[in-house]
């Protein structure tokens, strides 16, 4: 049976850099400049989240899954990746998407409902958000088997939640990853909740311990400590690159917002819990560290603020300015080759639309006649 493991931590909630002989070497390249840049990304990502939430409230987005509180888990891991690594994430990793260089407008596309997903996965080596819980862990494992076949040294990284660990797919992914020793990193963001269900309902023991039963080594890291997350991810990536097979990372963090903008967490969780976690805020922690190091100059603050604001503006204008798709677009890309069934339906629908003076009337539930 498992024993409680301590979290890997390099920076305390108070912003104190503590030494960790095993993991320190993995972030020794993170100097002052890098630290500031991490701080910037964390801040920008939170700002993105705030802006997108606002856009949802204003009716510009249909839905948004906030990542408030999980910034360090996403930035620490996202920035550890190499360009040729490939990410398969859930719907919540918009911060990782930002780190991968996904265009801001593209991030909002799917939530605005103008497309089924936002970007070309190959342009940033990141699949678009997966909604079916856990399904993407198998995709990552298969992709990693492909990397292996190709003799390449890139890594597939898959993100999923604590709730996802209950799904058969995630467990099967570990079976395959272990069996083939595939270069895949399982990154579990344990944010303590699966909608209204506490992590304890999914597992009585630590999530990270699941992996050992599959013969997969695991790391349990303070998910609100961006340095620790980066170090742990690098360890896992390094192992995968050098033929060491899969690693499971549990990033212990907290979903400070609702599950999505459609959710009301006051129905199921205690305000105190939120307060406890607010004290471990991933951004305040880096800020405190920078302060201790004397790096939190007005200039840095201003720069980060400006960057965040400009990103927010870009996000907003990109979102609002996005052209609506054309009705006939719904028939596109179902198949890559012609399909007689669909071609006929498409033809009929085009005729149907053409039979209207005002095509808008054709789609209202109340009717145009």
């Amino acid at each position, binding site marked *: 049976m498992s024993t409680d493991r301590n979290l890997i931590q390099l920076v305390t909630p108070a912003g104190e850099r503590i030494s960790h002989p095993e993991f320190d070497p993995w972030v020794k390249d993170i100097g002052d400049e890098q630290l500031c840049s991490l701080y910037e990304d964390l801040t920008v990502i939170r700002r993105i989240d705030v802006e997108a939430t606002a856009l949802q409230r204003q009716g510009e987005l*249909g*839905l948004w899954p906030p990542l408030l509180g999980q910034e360090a888990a996403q930035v620490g891991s996202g920035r550890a990746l190499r360009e040729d690594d490939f990410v398969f994430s859930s*719907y919540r990793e918009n911060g990782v998407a930002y780190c991968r260089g996904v265009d801001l407008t593209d991030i909002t596309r*799917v*939530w*605005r*409902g*103008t*497309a*089924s*997903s936002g970007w070309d996965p190959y342009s940033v080596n990141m699949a678009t958000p997966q*909604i*079916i*819980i856990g399904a993407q862990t198998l995709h990552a494992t298969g992709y990693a088997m492909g990397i292996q076949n190709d003799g390449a040294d890139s890594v597939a990284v898959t993100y999923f939640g604590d*709730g*996802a660990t*209950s*799904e*058969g*797919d995630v467990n099967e992914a570990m079976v395959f990853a272990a069996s083939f020793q595939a270069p895949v990193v399982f990154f579990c963001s344990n944010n303590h909740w*699966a*909608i*209204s*269900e506490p992590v304890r*309902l*999914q597992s009585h023991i630590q999530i990270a311990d699941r992996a050992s039963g599959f013969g997969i080594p695991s790391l349990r890291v303070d998910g609100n400590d961006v340095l620790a997350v980066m170090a742990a991810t690098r360890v896992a990536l390094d192992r995968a690159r050098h033929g060491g097979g899969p690693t499971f990372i549990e990033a212990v963090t907290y979903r400070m917002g609702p599950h999505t903008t*459609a*959710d009301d967490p006051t*129905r*199921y969780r205690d305000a105190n819990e939120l307060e406890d976690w607010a004290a471990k805020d991933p951004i305040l922690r880096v800020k405190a560290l920078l302060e201790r190091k004397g790096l939190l100059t007005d200039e840095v603050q201003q720069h980060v603020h400006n960057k965040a604001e400009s990103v927010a503006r870009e996000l907003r204008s990109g979102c609002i300015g996005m052209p*609506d*798709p054309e*009705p006939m*677009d*719904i*028939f596109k890309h*179902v198949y890559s080759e012609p*399909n007689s*069934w*669909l071609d006929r*339906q*498409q033809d*009929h*629908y085009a*005729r*149907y639309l*053409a*039979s*209207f003076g005002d095509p808008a*009337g*054709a*789609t*209202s*539930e*109340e*009717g*145009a*006649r």
Partner: protein
Amino acid sequence: MTQMTFARAINSGLRKSLENDPKVILMGEDIGTLGGVFRVTDGLQKDFGTHRVVDTPLAESAIMGTAVGLAYRGYRPVVEIQFDGFIYPAFDQIVSQVAKLHYRTQGAVKMPITIRVPFGGGIGSPEHHSESPEAYFTHTSGLRVVSVSNPQDAHTVIQQAILSDDPVLYFEPKRRYHDKGEVDEGIDPRTALPMDSARVVTEGTDVTLVAYGPLVKTAKDAATAAADEGISIEVIDLRSLAPVDYATVEASVRKTGRLVVTHEAGQSGGLGAEVAASITERCFYHLETAPVRITGFDIPYPYSKLEMHHLPGLDRILDGVDRALGRPNSLSGLEG
């Protein structure tokens, strides 16, 4: 009689079932403390306890598979699948176990499992939240499949489904959850119209329009609109999708000679094909024109900005009615 929403009518039906039979047990994701993402199970865990209304870990196959085990033990599990698109991980347990166990055991083991599925589109959601997977289940022998279109039926039929010794898929038209209607909570589900019966909801003489679930409202609206043009549509709410009550549909088509079937699911291999084929078999010589299907397209459910193009609306249905009637329509002049 009480005015209540569709969602509340189901809630009240569930409550009655929980009250009437201690073996009834609700299972699903977020159905307890939260009361379900649509609040359909609101308050039930509080009143019946965590052993009767069970928040389960996040694993659909396990929810279904443990429901099978509970049924073995004499329970009557009512399983909630959070959204239509999340039923597929449970497909194996449904198709190979729930549907087949009674047959496999020559009737020794009953599977009185009710599977509640909020289904269909029109709510502006992202992928997997707006699907209409009913045809997968209507083609699966051993299952019964129903869908309701109004609060009263929602209330009565959920109780009938739970009372049934056979497994029942109960499809809830999620875009109608907030619709209100009169509900008589005193109706005895055992003496009410059986759940495998269709119902003529609007009488008419010119054409039979068959709908179920979310599109019954649209079909009724179409009948109203058509009446203005002097066209008399008979609207049938199928209610039971497997088996379909063909006697009721047949009687109508023998009268009208014309049939239009509508559903949100994709056309090819959808329930509309089954209805069209069976009615053609049963009353070929009464048909004046070929049955018409007005359905979703053969595409993955599209992104929300365009979903109203995919969903059959009033005008598309009326266009289909015109086709059935041989009146000018969008395909006039096209061969076949």
